[in-house]
C-alpha cells in the first residue's frame, strides 16, 4: 500500500486512504507540487479549498494553487501579484503607444487636408 501513496500522504507521512482528497491532484511522481502548496497554504487549507469545490473543478484549483505557491516561493514578497503588476504596466504602456500612433496619424491627415486646400490645382484655374 505504501507504494501507492499520493505525494501529499507521502509528505505528511500518513496512510493514503482510497478517498484521499489530494491523491487525484498530487501524484506521487511529482512530490514538489505538494511540497509547494504545503509550504505556502498548509495541507489543511488546501484540503478545505478542494473539498468545498465540485469534483470537476478541483483539478484546475489544484493547478492554480500550485502555480501561485511556486510563485510565492520564488518571490516571497510579491508572489504572483508581481505578474499582475507587470501586466498592468504593459497595458498602460500599450495604451500610451496607441495614443501616440493615433496622434501621429491625425497629424498626417491634418497635413494632407491643409495641403489639399493650399494646392492651386485643387481649384479650377481662373485665367486660362
Amino acid at each position: 500500500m505504501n507504494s501507492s501513496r499520493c505525494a501529499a500522504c507521502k509528505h505528511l507521512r500518513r496512510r493514503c486512504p482510497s478517498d484521499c482528497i489530494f491523491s487525484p491532484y498530487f501524484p506521487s511522481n511529482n512530490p514538489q507540487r505538494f511540497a509547494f502548496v504545503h509550504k505556502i497554504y498548509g495541507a489543511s487549507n488546501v484540503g478545505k479549498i478542494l473539498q468545498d469545490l465540485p469534483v470537476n473543478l478541483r483539478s484546475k484549483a489544484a493547478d492554480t494553487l500550485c502555480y501561485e505557491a511556486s510563485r510565492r516561493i520564488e518571490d516571497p514578497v510579491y508572489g504572483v501579484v508581481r505578474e499582475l503588476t507587470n501586466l498592468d504596466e504593459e497595458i498602460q504602456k500599450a495604451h500610451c503607444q496607441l495614443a501616440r500612433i493615433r496622434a501621429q496619424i491625425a497629424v498626417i491627415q491634418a497635413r494632407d487636408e491643409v495641403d489639399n486646400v493650399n494646392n492651386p490645382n485643387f481649384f479650377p484655374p481662373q485665367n486660362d
Partner: protein
Amino acid sequence: MASSTGSYNSPCAACKFLRRKCTPGCIFSPYFPPEEPHKFANVHKIFGASNVSKLLNELLPHQREDAVNSLAFEAEARVRDPVYGCVGAISFLQRQVDRLQKELDAANADLIRYAAAATQAPPPPPRHRSAVDYGRGGGGGGGFYNQTPSSFTFPYNYHFPTWNGGGVDGNI
C-alpha cells in the same frame, strides 16, 4: 498600510481573530490594523496564521508590508474565486494585452500607409508648371516609422474563463 496603534489601545485584527493577547512584538500588528478585520480573516482562511507568520519572519522588516498586502490581495482573489484565484486575473489581463497588441499592429500599419501615401503625393500637372512644393520635410524626425516590437512576455499559457471578480487594478 502599516499601523503602529497595535497593542497599546486595542489588539490587532490578527490577535482579535485568534482571540489572543496582542503583545508589543506581535508580528501581525503593524500590518493588520483592527479596523480591517476582513484583511486578516481572508489571509488566515487561505494561508493560515502560522504560515504567514513564518513567511514574515523570513523577510526583512521593510519587505513585510508589501508582502502582507500582496498576500491579502491573493487571499481575497482566492476567496472570491476559489478555483482560479489570482490566476484568473492574470488570464484576464493577458487577454487585454493580446487585444492591445493587435490594435497596435493595426495602428502601426495604418500609420505606415498614411505616411507612405503622404510621401507619394502626385506632382502638379505639367501645363501649370506649378512650383508647388508639397514641402514634405521627411515626416517629422522619423517617428512615423517607429514600429515598437512586441515585448510582451507571458508567464504561461493557461486558458481560464474571464475574471469575474472586482478589485483587479494592480493597486496593492
